């Protein structure tokens, strides 16, 4: 087993990786930006290195600083988490060149799969079904228009270097193609430093189903069944589950085998995911993510496998500890992403200081979080605060458990998407498993921001009792001859001003 690892990430995934490494006795080195001095991942590591200012480009995305920190802490390996540098072939290569172990696949694999058009070519060649579209990056808006016309509308313009829903634009009409191309390219440049964009047929109501893969250096490749991630907004996953409520055992086997074929085609080593879109009984290769996914815990809960442990075992030169036939599939698990966003205001990013945090507990509930009380939630990074995961013997019990857990989750000081998640977990189509990536747009009623009569009455009662209590505790001084009260003197900026005695008190 490797002796030590630097975790080149932040937030919940950095903490997840540190937890896994600690359990294996691997010395852990956290890195952090100036904005993350008080993040939980820092204190849970054995060592911590400040790598730069808040801007990711000068900290978590700065390969030189990451490698410098690894050298200073004499790290034997680097785990990239997801996002940031996780799918940058140049980073994987630089890590290897520095004589360190990169916990992930080979740089060539990352490069091949990171270039989405190259990936499509390789997959088609390996006999994996792909969505109709272009196989080369588009040079201009006008080339995009031609390609889109050939593929047939609607189409989606996608960053070749992309992932996580960034740098994507759905276009339904020819006259929107050029603007969509430019927006996707701009976002792609900002997010990935590469503005290449290609075009694909846009499936209107597909289900997003992906297969978890693992390969080792001995030619073994297995899949750990599928996850369904159809509940998305703006191509960002919101709720994920394992297994998919759609697939029959035969389809599960077929999709798993296609994914293994895809992995073998690129000599895959480590953890990876093949994403498929499933519509009308067909499924198509969407992309391959050459890293741990955000939603990996649902797979861990239905298989009993610790995916981070497997990553470290394979990175240390070990073989996969299970064969395909030995990998269990037990029960059902659901994950809700808890993000700092206001879902009823168009998912506006929310900021603030975490003032209160109550984490759900009890049977079948897992919290993978990256915040603590006192943390400032800013706009520098991804809005993912944590993931709430619930498991049960079947989908219905997992849903009931998740509903209970969401009712317990309490975060104050920053708005989160929790109220929307609670509504989805009560919505009949979701309960019946009638899912698609269009689910949220087809359920606008979930976004009514009405508090409801009971909550309104409760809020009125709470407010009036709080104010009543405050006035009873702090006698409000009355200025003679004036009806106004200095009822807020305590909140003022002059704490030494003594209350003026109230002659009528």
């Amino acid at each position, binding site marked *: 087993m490797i002796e030590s690892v630097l975790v080149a990430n932040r937030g919940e995934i950095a903490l997840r990786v540190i937890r896994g490494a600690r359990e294996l006795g691997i010395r852990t080195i956290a890195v952090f930006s100036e904005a993350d001095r008080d993040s939980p991942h820092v204190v849970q590591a054995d060592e911590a290195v400040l790598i730069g200012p808040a801007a990711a480009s000068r900290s978590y995305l700065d390969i030189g600083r990451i490698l410098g920190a690894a050298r200073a802490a004499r790290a034997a390996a680097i785990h990239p988490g997801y996002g940031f540098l996780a799918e940058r072939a140049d980073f994987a290569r630089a890590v290897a060149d520095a004589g360190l172990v990169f916990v992930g696949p080979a740089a060539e694999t990352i490069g091949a799969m990171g270039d989405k058009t190259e990936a499509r070519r390789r997959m088609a060649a390996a006999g994996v079904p792909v969505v109709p579209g272009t196989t080369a990056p588009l040079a201009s808006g006008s080339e995009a228009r031609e390609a889109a016309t050939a593929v047939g509308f609607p189409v989606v313009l996608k960053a070749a270097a992309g992932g996580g829903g960034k740098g994507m634009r759905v276009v339904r009409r020819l006259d929107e193609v050029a603007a969509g191309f430019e927006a996707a390219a701009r*976002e792609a440049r900002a997010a990935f430093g590469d503005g290449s964009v290609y075009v694909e047929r846009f499936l209107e109501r597909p289900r997003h189903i992906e297969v978890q893969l693992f390969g080792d250096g001995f030619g073994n490749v297995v899949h750990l069944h599928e996850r369904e991630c159809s509940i998305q907004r703006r191509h960002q996953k919101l709720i994920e589950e394992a297994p998919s409520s759609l697939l029959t055992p035969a389809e599960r086997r077929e999709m798993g085998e296609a994914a293994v074929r895809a992995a073998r085609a690129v000599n895959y080593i480590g953890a990876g995911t093949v994403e498929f879109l499933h519509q009308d009984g067909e499924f198509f290769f969407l992309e391959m993510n050459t890293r741990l996914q955000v939603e990996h815990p649902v797979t861990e809960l239905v298989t009993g496998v610790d995916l981070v442990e497997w990553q470290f075992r394979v990175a240390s030169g070990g073989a996969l500890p299970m064969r395909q036939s030995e990998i269990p599939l037990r029960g059902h698990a659901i994950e809700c992403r808890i993000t700092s966003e206001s879902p009823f*205001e168009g998912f506006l990013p929310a900021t603030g200081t975490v003032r209160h945090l109550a984490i759900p507990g009890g049977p079948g509930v897992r919290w993978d979080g990256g915040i603590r009380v006192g943390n400032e939630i800013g706009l520098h990074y991804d809005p993912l605060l944590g993931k709430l995961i619930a498991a049960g013997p079947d989908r219905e019990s997992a849903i009931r458990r998740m509903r209970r857990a969401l009712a317990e989750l309490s975060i104050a000081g920053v708005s989160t998407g929790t109220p929307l998640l609670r509504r989805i977990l009560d919505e009949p189509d979701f309960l019946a498993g009638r899912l698609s990536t269009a689910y949220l747009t087809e359920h606008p009623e979930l976004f009514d921001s009405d508090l409801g009569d009971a909550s309104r009455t*409760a809020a009125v009662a709470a*407010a009036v*009792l709080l104010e009543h209590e405050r006035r009873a505790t702090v006698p409000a001084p009355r200025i003679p001859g004036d009806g106004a*009260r200095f009822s*807020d003197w305590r909140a003022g900026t002059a704490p030494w001003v003594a209350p003026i005695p109230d002659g009528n008190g």
Partner: protein
Amino acid sequence: MNRRGSRYVVCLAGETHDVVVGVDGKVVIDGTTHDVSLSGRGPARMRTLILDGKPRAVYAGRRTGGLWELGLDGEFVSAEVMDARAARVRALSAAVGSERGPADLKAPMPGLVVQVAVETGEIVGPGAAVVIVEAMKMENELRAPAAARVERILVAPGEAVEKGQILVEFGEVEPQ
């Protein structure tokens, strides 16, 4: 305060409620009597409200004067509590009307201006993209709330903006 209870007016989400707080755990809201208790004054600012036997955790946030920020089940609302006299004063001053055109475009969150899609004097339709602001690496199109004329553009691409900052001032669309 008198023997029969203290009267308040509570403004919440645009609606006004008459409330009487009794001395016996009873609160009358808009004429309906409720059994209420509110406990807890710890460092966490979480309170336990029991309203007619139904318990809820309530977060009691930042206050100035009679203004409270409340968190119920992860939804946050502001409530303003006034005593009867203050409410009357407020009602009188609000009677002075205001003439208003289309609302100006404000930044709904802090971020970076990526693009300004309009020019001064331009007439935009409702829902037209006006400014693109990037926050958390996502682009957010800010659209015109209604048909309007662009009166003044106050920001330029590359500029960082605060939440609530006015980006574009609109005027009425008049026949030219």
